[in-house]
């Protein structure tokens, strides 16, 4: 391992003379009492691929947003190609030829590829948009980048990998030579990731500087030249990728060894709790779910892997009762619930941790004690003959907060006063308290840091060990492989494979997830 030393050097150069593309000096950024970046010093050499790693909340995105002008540092300065610059807007960053691909794509779905690429820097004659010129330039850029994109195609019709290409084209169109990629692999399957890395390497060979925010250490070591680790808003160090190991970087990230081990069931799985047969959901003429078959047993975690948009959302909504399927059947504990209301399914023991807890599991302006019974408000003792019992509701909230160690100022505080991890804990606690038999957890650790993630995982495992049937939907293959007893892959509205959790590998899952293989579909 070779940490670069911090001896003073000529502005814009490393001590060894290498020119710097970006240099952050003593950057500090505070949010309402939290320090997101604490005197960060960060140097990126021209033409390198520099990975920025750290846990959720370590301050990576904040630092990059300041480099891209979306936020301003409270202290410190940023030098671009050796010159101190006040980057007070993305507009300024673009002028400095800095570009950023955000984790959540920033594309206008209703616009064409060309319109998306040129927006903000349009070819024009005195205010009149020159769309032909835009199409021509974009097509040319795409070819130079080794990709075939129709500039006139609407972005909403493109696949995720192609949309990412559009994002990169946006930067190239603006002649950016410092490219910031915020977790670009999070939305891709392993095969697409390899294509992206090839593109990154070719850009780097063309002299572009790439800053790349990442989670997965394997990926980082595969593509990056150097790696900077952030923890709690501070820089822990910068290492050369060729001279380090995954374990070393992981320890720098969390300050302790990380354990991502498989946790498989102690008890054999029992009788079927959830049986789904030939489930179909139509959206207009398109089949979002095209006859999905699925069985989840007691004392089992069934992990459902897949690229988002392959029918997971529709499956979950149909299981919970939020939409009516156009065909097929759903049985819960042996009872047909295909047409049952949400309330009836909940009474039969279904509980649900939605993908977006802010939007679907909580009412943020309402108090914790009100949120603590959401979904169970019709049960005794929380209400009786239509009248609420606030005393019982408060008692329940106090119990939940204690049992799950939710950090909350008071149970009378509004839910938005809690951090994301604590909100998720409260949701878990509430759903577990409802006396469930089947738990449907959609992306339960999304947006959580490692500590909270571990907590959620432990809860899922102990639920499984207590005899619950758990359906875990996740885009995170590490999570699926760590937890699931059985793994299903959903592709294009069908379960195309079912594998034993202890046998499945990431690459194998990737093949099924992209539709390259589909030979292990479970029978109806």
């Amino acid at each position, binding site marked *: 391992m070779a940490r670069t030393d911090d001896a003073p050097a000529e502005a814009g150069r490393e001590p060894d003379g290498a020119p710097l593309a970006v240099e952050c000096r003593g950057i500090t950024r505070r949010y*309402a*009492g939290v320090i997101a970046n604490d005197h960060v010093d960060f140097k990126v050499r021209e033409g390198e691929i520099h990975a920025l790693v750290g846990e959720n909340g370590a301050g990576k995105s904040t630092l990059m947003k300041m480099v891209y002008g979306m936020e301003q540092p409270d202290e410190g300065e940023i030098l671009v190609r050796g010159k101190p610059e006040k980057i007070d807007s993305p507009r300024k960053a673009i002028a400095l030829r800095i570009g950023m691909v955000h984790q959540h794509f920033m594309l206008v779905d209703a616009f064409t590829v060309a319109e998306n690429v040129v927006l903000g820097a349009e070819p024009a004659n005195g205010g009149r948009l020159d769309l032909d010129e835009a199409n021509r330039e974009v097509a040319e850029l795409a070819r130079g980048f080794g990709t075939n994109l129709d500039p006139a195609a609407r972005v909403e019709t493109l696949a995720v990998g192609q949309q990412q290409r559009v994002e990169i084209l946006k930067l190239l169109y603006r002649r950016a030579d410092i490219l910031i990629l915020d977790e670009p692999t999070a939305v891709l399957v392993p095969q697409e990731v390899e294509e992206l890395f090839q593109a990154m390497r070719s850009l780097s060979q063309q002299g572009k500087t790439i800053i790349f925010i990442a989670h997965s250490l394997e990926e980082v070591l595969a593509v990056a030249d150097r790696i900077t680790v952030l923890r709690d808003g501070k820089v822990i160090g910068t290492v050369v990728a060729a001279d380090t190991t995954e374990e070393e970087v992981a320890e720098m990230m969390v300050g302790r060894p990380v354990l991502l081990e498989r946790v498989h069931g102690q008890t054999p799985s029992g009788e079927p709790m959830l049986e789904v047969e030939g489930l179909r959901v139509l959206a207009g003429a398109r089949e979002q779910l095209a006859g999905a078959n699925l069985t989840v047993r007691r004392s089992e975690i069934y992990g459902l892997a897949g690229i988002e948009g392959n029918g997971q959302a529709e499956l979950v909504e149909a299981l919970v009762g939020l939409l009516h399927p156009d065909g097929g059947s759903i049985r819960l504990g042996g009872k047909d619930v295909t047409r049952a209301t949400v309330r009836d399914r909940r009474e039969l023991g279904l509980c649900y941790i939605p993908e977006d807890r802010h939007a679907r599991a909580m009412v943020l302006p309402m108090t914790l004690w009100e949120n603590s019974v959401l979904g169970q*408000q019709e049960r005794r003792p929380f209400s009786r003959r239509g009248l609420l019992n*606030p005393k019982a509701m408060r008692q329940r909230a106090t119990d939940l907060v204690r049992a799950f*160690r939710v*950090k909350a100022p008071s149970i009378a505080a509004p839910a938005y006063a809690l*951090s*994301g991890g604590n909100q998720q804990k409260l949701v878990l606690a509430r759903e577990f308290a409802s006396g469930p038999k089947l738990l449907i957890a959609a992306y339960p650790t999304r947006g959580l*840091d490692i500590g909270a993630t571990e907590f959620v995982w432990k809860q899922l495992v102990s639920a499984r060990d207590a005899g619950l049937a758990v359906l875990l939907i996740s885009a995170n293959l590490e999570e699926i492989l760590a937890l699931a007893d059985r793994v299903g892959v959903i592709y294009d509205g069908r379960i195309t494979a079912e594998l034993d959790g202890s046998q499945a590998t990431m690459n194998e899952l990737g093949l099924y997830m992209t539709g390259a293989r589909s030979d292990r579909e479970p029978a109806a």
Partner: protein
Amino acid sequence: MKVEERPPAPGAEPPTEAVASRVGWTERASQLGLQLLAPAISLLISAVVGALVILIVQRNVGDLADVASTMWDYGLANRSAFAFIFGRATPFIFAGIAVAIAFKAGLFNIGVEGQYAIGALTAAIVGTKLSAPTVIHLPLTILAGMAGGLAWALIPALLKVYRGAHEVISTIMMNYVANGLLLYLLSGPLKDTTQVGAIAQQRTVPVEDTARVGSMVPFFNSIGFNFRGSSPVTWLFLLALVAAAVYAFVVRRTRFGFELRVLGINPRAAEPAGIRSNAMMMKAMLLSGAVAGLAGLQDLLGFDGYMKLDYVRGYGFTAIAIALLGRNTGIGIVAGALLFSYLDRASSGIGLNTGVPKEVTIIMGGVIILTIVVAYELVRRATARRQLKEAHERA
């Protein structure tokens, strides 16, 4: 940036924190202060704007003093001022509750206007066509008013739930259709043909005495007020206060109210919690219409005694302001209704006693609405920011 909880240090589990189950009194008082700050700012700005308008238009400081003294002398200090304020507040409270019920479910009922007009019409039909003793006739007439309002809210509610049509546009369209219906009925089938006098009005025959509502003046005078006998306040004022209390109870202490709030604040969380949003929207809109149907009854059963063509009197629009000002709480609506009722009273005083157009109070009402929404938004942000900060400091 999402601020996430830090992972606990390995091996050292944090001690279980004692969790306060209630907010302390000082905290509550400061919250209440913040809540009252917004209306206070809003009232102040509207007074300033009102004064500026008078100064700009009249160019005379004397007028300003006239208006101010009239607003006090005639608006409040006058012998019967409060009777007038209570009386006018009655339809405002009903209409305000109607708007607030819809607001609570995340809906905008701009059709209160048409709903109470139709409610008054159906009440007038029952009041004129039926004959029964008061104990039967009056409640039936009032129920008929509610049924009329409910019926008029039914179409926008159905369009919303089954066709997704935005209720703001559809309820306003229903207001215009209500006007057409009134015009047709009051100039045709329901017109009182026995009227004497040179100009026959487009109105119904008088409602039976058994369906009329009595004056509340004797009661007020028996508890120490000194209202003129003809002062316009009826027992429907009491019904309005009861309605506000029931509304507040339902919203805060019933499961229906709980589910209504969940739906209104975060509709996407409602369905997963087993709340059927379509059914709730339907109920809320119909309930809103039914309560709206009460707003026209005081004019019909207390004062005029017959249904006239001019029954679309703007209560529904004022009610939106009242509900916003009162933050959809029962007591807030009553307070807001009294305030706007006072502005009305002051308005007639200004018209009688000064050279300033009395419509200056309408401007003040409008300014209150615009500033109150901005002020509440700013206060909300300030509170949210403070609470977030406190949460982080604690964490």
